[in-house]
């Protein structure tokens, strides 16, 4: 009897086990598609250029896109609730130039850095309150945030401000080497943001409420979950990530610049969608968004390797986005028919 029971699962065979897996984790499939595309890109580039998959290149892939990764983490929270945040690029520019200006007027980094993070979170709070308590569509509310952040950035300074602060520069200049691989504190911050984001999303009641709100706001409310607080919080998190990205980008470029991140919100939205997050909410992974950043970064690197126009990046990302949207539309249509 026992023998039979233990034998039974083995008999299931690979096909069936893949079946149970996909059944349990159907929502991971788009992320797998992103991973497949990433591998395809990396392998293809290596075969074509011969010197693409070097530790140096791969390390740079993380470091050059650290700010995008941080923004993508925040955006994932927002999009999983079926919202959208257009303000991230300009919030990043504002906190970056604001921080640079504070530092240049002699404010120490220990105060400047928290101020940057808090000011990003405050713009997020404004958006969240408009969305939740005044019934403003996320698109419009975050549009106000976009205007506000960009304008404030120029209010702080019309031109770039160099950063001399040793603490902030340390974030970028320190290279922790493992063989030929290296990572800077900014890269660690980005990975940390991904890790914290993933744990919060999957292991905390707040994170599960984020998914619940995206699945069905009304059901979440009927279940007694704290919907209003959660909806405000995701925008605060996105704003906070905007502040952190401002710090990282300032460290990376050694200066604050009010024109930073123009159009970045679109890149980030595209990255999150390519990473497998459904724009209609309820499904998505912070880790998937990280993959999305790598896909984006790889395309960019390949294009610069080829010596082609960087504008190809946006065209290819746009096409990938289209592909994913159409696939998602098909998935949603199928699940609608299923229920």
């Amino acid at each position, binding site marked *: 009897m026992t023998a039979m029971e233990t034998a039974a699962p083995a008999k299931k065979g690979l096909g069936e086990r893949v079946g149970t897996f996909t059944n349990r984790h159907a929502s991971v499939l788009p992320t797998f598609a992103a991973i497949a595309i990433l591998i395809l890109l990396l392998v293809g580039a290596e075969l074509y250029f011969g010197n693409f998959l070097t530790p140096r290149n791969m390390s740079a892939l993380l470091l050059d896109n650290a700010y995008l990764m941080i923004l993508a983490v925040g955006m994932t929270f927002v999009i999983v609730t079926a919202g*959208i945040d257009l303000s991230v690029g*300009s919030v990043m520019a504002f906190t970056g130039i604001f921080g640079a200006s504070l530092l240049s007027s002699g404010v120490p980094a220990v105060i400047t850095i928290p101020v940057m993070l808090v000011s990003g979170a405050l713009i997020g709070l404004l958006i969240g309150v*408009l969305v939740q*308590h*005044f*019934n*403003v*569509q996320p*698109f*419009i*509310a975050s*549009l*106000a*945030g*976009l*205007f*506000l952040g*960009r*304008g*404030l950035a*120029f*209010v702080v300074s*019309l031109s770039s401000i160099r950063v001399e602060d040793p603490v902030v520069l340390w974030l970028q200049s320190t290279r922790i080497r493992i063989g030929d691989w290296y990572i800077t504190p900014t890269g660690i911050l980005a990975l940390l943001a991904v890790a914290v984001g993933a744990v919060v999303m999957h292991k905390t009641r707040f994170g599960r409420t984020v998914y619940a709100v995206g699945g069905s706001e*009304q059901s979440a*409310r*009927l279940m007694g979950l704290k919907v209003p607080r959660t909806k405000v919080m995701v925008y605060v998190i996105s704003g906070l990530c905007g502040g952190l990205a401002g710090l990282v980008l300032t460290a990376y470029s050694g200066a604050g610049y*009010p024109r930073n991140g*123009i*159009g970045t919100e*679109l*890149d980030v*939205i*595209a990255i999150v969608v390519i990473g497998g997050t459904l*724009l*209609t909410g309820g499904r998505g992974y912070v880790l998937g968004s990280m993959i999305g950043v790598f896909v984006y970064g790889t395309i960019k690197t390949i294009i610069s390797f080829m010596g082609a*126009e*960087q*504008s*190809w*990046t*946006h*065209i290819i*990302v*746009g*096409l990938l*986005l*289209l592909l994913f*949207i*159409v696939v998602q*539309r098909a998935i949603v249509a199928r699940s609608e028919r299923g229920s």
Partner: protein
Amino acid sequence: MRLVKHRLFWPAAALVTLLIVNVVANPNFARITVRDGQLYGALIDILRQSAPLMLVALGMTLVIATRGIDLSVGAVMAVSGAVALTIIDSPSSNPNSLGTVLIAIVVAVLVALVLGAWNGFLVSVLGIQPIIATLVLMLAGRGAALLITDGFITTVNSDPLSFIASGYLLILPFAFFVWLAFVIIVGVIERRTALGMLTEAVGINPEASRLAGVRSRGIIWTAYIASGTLAGIAGVIYAANIKAADANAAGYLIELYAILAVVLGGTSLMGGKFSIAGTVIGVLTVQALDSTILFLGVPPAQSPVFFAVVVILVVLVQSPRVHRWGRSVGARFRHSDGEADAPSSPERQKEVAR
């Protein structure tokens, strides 16, 4: 009292107030000088400079009426400007020949029309959310424009092209006549045919419209095509103004200003009833606000802060919660005047979620 009730009263009042504030703050604002039989001044500049935004906002009005949104207009402007200037700039053509410029404009606008049709296809046939569907082109469009210009800012010296943006017809700028013509054309098409009414029906109640036999797919598609085409013309005017195709700067944030102008003009983002006259007022308000900010000596780069405040004020005024506050404050006010207390909408309070 009837005047106050008219739905264009508040948008128009906002515009007039803005202009009055300007004149009071700086009488020069209202001064119009005559040079060579042509009018110049801050007000004339507003009429001239509002052309691109006006055209984009016209298209956006139609798209919003169908409950949609078109984020790609800025990118379409960039593409159309790039196409037009590349044709004019090509070695085989003479930039000062009217024929070349006309061909360039026609080709550019046709490309824009195709891009609009593409958006319409995604929304009306594939059923993709408008925000997302138009995001694709918003992202890829600018890249394509950069490719067309080989990544450079293509500059040309073409008299016929410059005339579009800075020339004068009789006493007023030519650009003003361009947007006026399109306001009239769109107005006539929407209101002299049944297109406007059917568009509103689809925007207000898509299912009822379907049951009444309205071809909603075609109507939605038409709105996106119109939006793309008008953005294409706007792109040409923009390029004519700076005498260059700048794929990064052309139409930057214009989708957002256009949405703002449409909302200021009294058309709801929820779709349905739209007002072209309202959009005209909305665009002039946005443009006047922009000029005001410049006039106040604020660097143009900082103007988004003011627009952020305007957007927040507008959405707050429209929000149901503020309406409720307004009503309860109003009721209390009347109550203290000794009048009967207005009943505070019992249905709304009663229906808790479900």
